[in-house]
């Protein structure tokens, strides 16, 4: 009985219905032409199908590759670059070379002097020049800024999706008072003036949480992750609720219920696996949105704590030099643009890939 139930569920899930070559052909058809060899027709699993569809989407793949490279560059490349260049992202180079003759930030590919303990000047390279009149290395700050952006983007996404998917699954699966309560809570959260609320929270809660770094995060990252996560879960909750509502009526769920599976087991084993696709799509889109939100808050001076670099505070400093050093706006601007574009392209590609009925 339990084998039957499992195979029924599995079939409906599209996970384990594997037909192999001739064994799949009806016996009478096989008898018609013994010489006709249809070859090995292998039905594809769900994830294999997703991957095949995604592989056809070159833009999405390019986005994915960019994201992987970005992670590698931010988390491995930044410390390596700092090591080889011989200085950190927060170190001002005001003694020699960090500012030009007009006291403006040095331009790209400038050699600057670092004052050593012996009072000598050691030549070091600023690849993208100085970040401001504080004469810090723009290139390193951009790399370390990527770390912060990704930490905030990924952290806030994980938290919001965790909260959203649990709330959405519970609301959609149980319906009734649970659905009503969670749905109204979602409505309430959506009705809040999001940005103002985030600014208020960042300005109050932030002062207490900015020091929490767990030894590896930037100062202020935890605050932003909590603020974005706690206020950004509603969208994923809505999506998950609608998916859960449709899944709870499926035959395999009925079959599972028929064989005595508990609600918890049904949610864990049958509902959640179906949420993975939409969750991944939402995640990619949310990461991009949270990275932009971080930049926005840091631009307003409420995000990442100074002197930690983030793309937002690099952008915030840049307008002071927009006539004399316009490239200072370009670097973090392009980094933000490419990153959000990459995440969005990947998200779009994944959405299509997870939809077997999609045209592509």
């Amino acid at each position, binding site marked *: 009985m339990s084998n039957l139930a499992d195979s029924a569920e599995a079939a409906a899930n599209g996970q384990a219905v594997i037909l192999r070559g001739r064994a799949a052909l009806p016996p009478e058809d096989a008898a018609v032409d013994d010489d006709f060899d249809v070859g090995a027709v292998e039905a594809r699993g769900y994830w294999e199908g997703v991957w095949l569809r995604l592989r056809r989407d070159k833009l999405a793949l390019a986005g994915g590759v960019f994201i992987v490279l970005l992670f590698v560059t931010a988390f491995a490349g930044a410390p390596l670059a700092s090591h080889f260049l011989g200085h950190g992202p927060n170190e001002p180079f005001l003694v020699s070379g960090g500012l030009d003759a007009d006291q403006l930030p040095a331009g790209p590919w400038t050699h600057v002097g670092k*004052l050593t303990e*012996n009072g000598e000047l050691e030549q070091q390279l600023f690849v993208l020049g100085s970040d401001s009149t504080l004469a810090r290395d723009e290139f390193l700050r951009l790399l370390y800024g990527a770390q912060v952006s990704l930490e905030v983007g990924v952290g806030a996404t994980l938290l919001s999706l965790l909260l959203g998917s649990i709330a959405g699954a519970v609301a959609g699966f149980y319906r009734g008072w649970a659905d009503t309560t969670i749905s109204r809570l979602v409505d309430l959260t959506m009705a809040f003036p999001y940005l103002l609320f985030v600014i208020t929270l960042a300005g109050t809660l932030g002062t207490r949480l900015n020091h929490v770094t767990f030894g590896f995060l930037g100062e202020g990252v935890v605050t932003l992750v909590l603020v974005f996560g706690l206020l950004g879960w509603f969208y994923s909750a809505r999506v998950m609720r609608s998916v859960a509502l449709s899944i709870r009526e499926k035959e395999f769920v009925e079959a599972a219920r028929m064989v005595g599976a508990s609600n918890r087991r049904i949610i864990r084993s049958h509902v959640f696996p179906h949420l993975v696709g939409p969750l991944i799509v939402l995640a990619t889109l949310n990461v991009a949105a949270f990275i932009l939100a971080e930049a926005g808050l840091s631009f307003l001076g409420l995000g990442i704590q100074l002197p930690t670099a983030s793309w937002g505070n690099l952008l915030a400093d840049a307008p002071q030099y927009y006539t004399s050093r316009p490239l200072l706006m370009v670097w973090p601007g392009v980094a933000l643009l490419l990153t959000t574009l990459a995440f969005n392209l990947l998200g779009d590609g994944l959405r299509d890939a997870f939809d077997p009925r999609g045209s592509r």
Partner: protein
Amino acid sequence: MKGKRLLGIALAISSLSLLLVAAATAGPTAKRGGTIVLDMTTDVDYIDPQLSYYGETWKLEATTACKLMNWPDKEGPAGAVATPEVASGLPLVSKDGKTYTFTIKPGFKFSNGKAVTAQSFVDAVNRFANPKMQSTGVAFLDIIKGAQAAVDGKAGSVSGVKARGNKLTIQLTKASPDLLARLAMPFYQAIDPTLARQIDANGINQYASCGPYYFASRTPGRSITLKRNPNYKGGRTANADTIQVNIGNSVDVEFQNVEKGTSDYASGGIPATEWKNIVAKYGLNKKDGRVQVRPQLDIRYVAMNHSRPLFKNNPQLAKAVNWAVDRQAFSAQGGYLYGKRTGQILPPGMLGYKPAGIYPLKVTANTIKQARKLAEGNLRGGKAVLWSSNAGTAPLQAQLIQYNLKQIGIDAEIKLLPRAQQFTNAGNPQTASFDMTVERWGADYADPYDFMNILLDGKQVTQPQHNNYAYFNVAKYNKEMTAASLLQGPKRGVAYAALDGNMMRSNPPWAPLVNSNDRIFLSSRVGCVTINEISATGPLLNVLCLK
């Protein structure tokens, strides 16, 4: 007869020619009327005369207030002498120097039509001293008899200030050489009876005033409008009909607005990097020119909070900070003609200023070594909260200080605040949760009392609002400051110079950084530029005119 006629014709022609020549060679004449527009980056603290203590507000109050004594609307030495305004002349002073009697000049009226009387000044002092007002400036009342009792809530009014008819008598607790200069501060301006009754620590945003202008409206955080006082007959210039202040634009926007002529004065400054360009483009300090730079009696400094564990009885660390701060780099953040580096309390030009050369004005490997040596063993955990303004170059300057502190082992957390909030909270013992704050002080009047006693006398630190942001309270220095304030002439200068040197050498309350210049950028629409740094920073707004 014919000869006389010819002579008349010749005279008429020559007179006409002279008139034409004069008209042709005259510069653009002041145009009365129109609206002068100012941009400010952040809002003022208050516009209430007994509460406002922000340079930007005083800039406006220089046009709205009428005072017993005032600074003439003139440049240079002529503008630096406190001169009777509503007082009909200099006061009669008693032999012991403790009683001043002023006679009030008739004719001054508030914008609501009421006359300015001797009582208007009594009301101002009483409102100023009222503890419910919580004014930051009450330290300036210390010499007036009965003021402290009123400030402490022990008396309903200040017993030493009395009006009888058109006579105003001010009794002092001690002979004070700087009383007349103090009376030129906006705190002491005449107030009308309605305002006298309005006691509100949050300040009043609309009131009648007796200067050439009055505050017609204020929308906090957005705008302030000044209109010409229709009843003003005091003789000061009032060129524009309206002075409109727009608040909240960034320095970049202010710069663009003034360049385009949609605003006339970037009161909040312009991007630091633009000063060099505009000096090259428009020239410097030309008559009625667009770019004006003046030295001012001012100081930018890091106040070290001596009431908190990090700096309490820790002079070695305070000295280390003075050795560590990069004054040159701090100044560089402000851009071209920002100011002059300093390591002492009194600014050049102030009585008592004597170059002491105690701390380095340029960082070298040796200065950092010296700073580390002084800090060693005195870090007390090495954590600090550093307050700074969030406007203009202040965040960059704060990050620089943060980096300098890190070099001696202090891990400073920066907290950026709107400027008015920064100094208001810093001056309130209940809200002063900082270890260091990057501050700026501009002289209220040209006397060392205004720097030493006002900023560092420990008697202040228990007041609900004060300016001793270092919470510096050393009995020896308190006594010496009081003694110096009673001296006159060169002795006064010598005493204050000694105080400056001794304090900075043995127990520095601050890390002084720069004596900054007043850099002014004006639109092409305006002329009649008169600057009196003693009266207010920037051009005198009542004199400024549209071309």
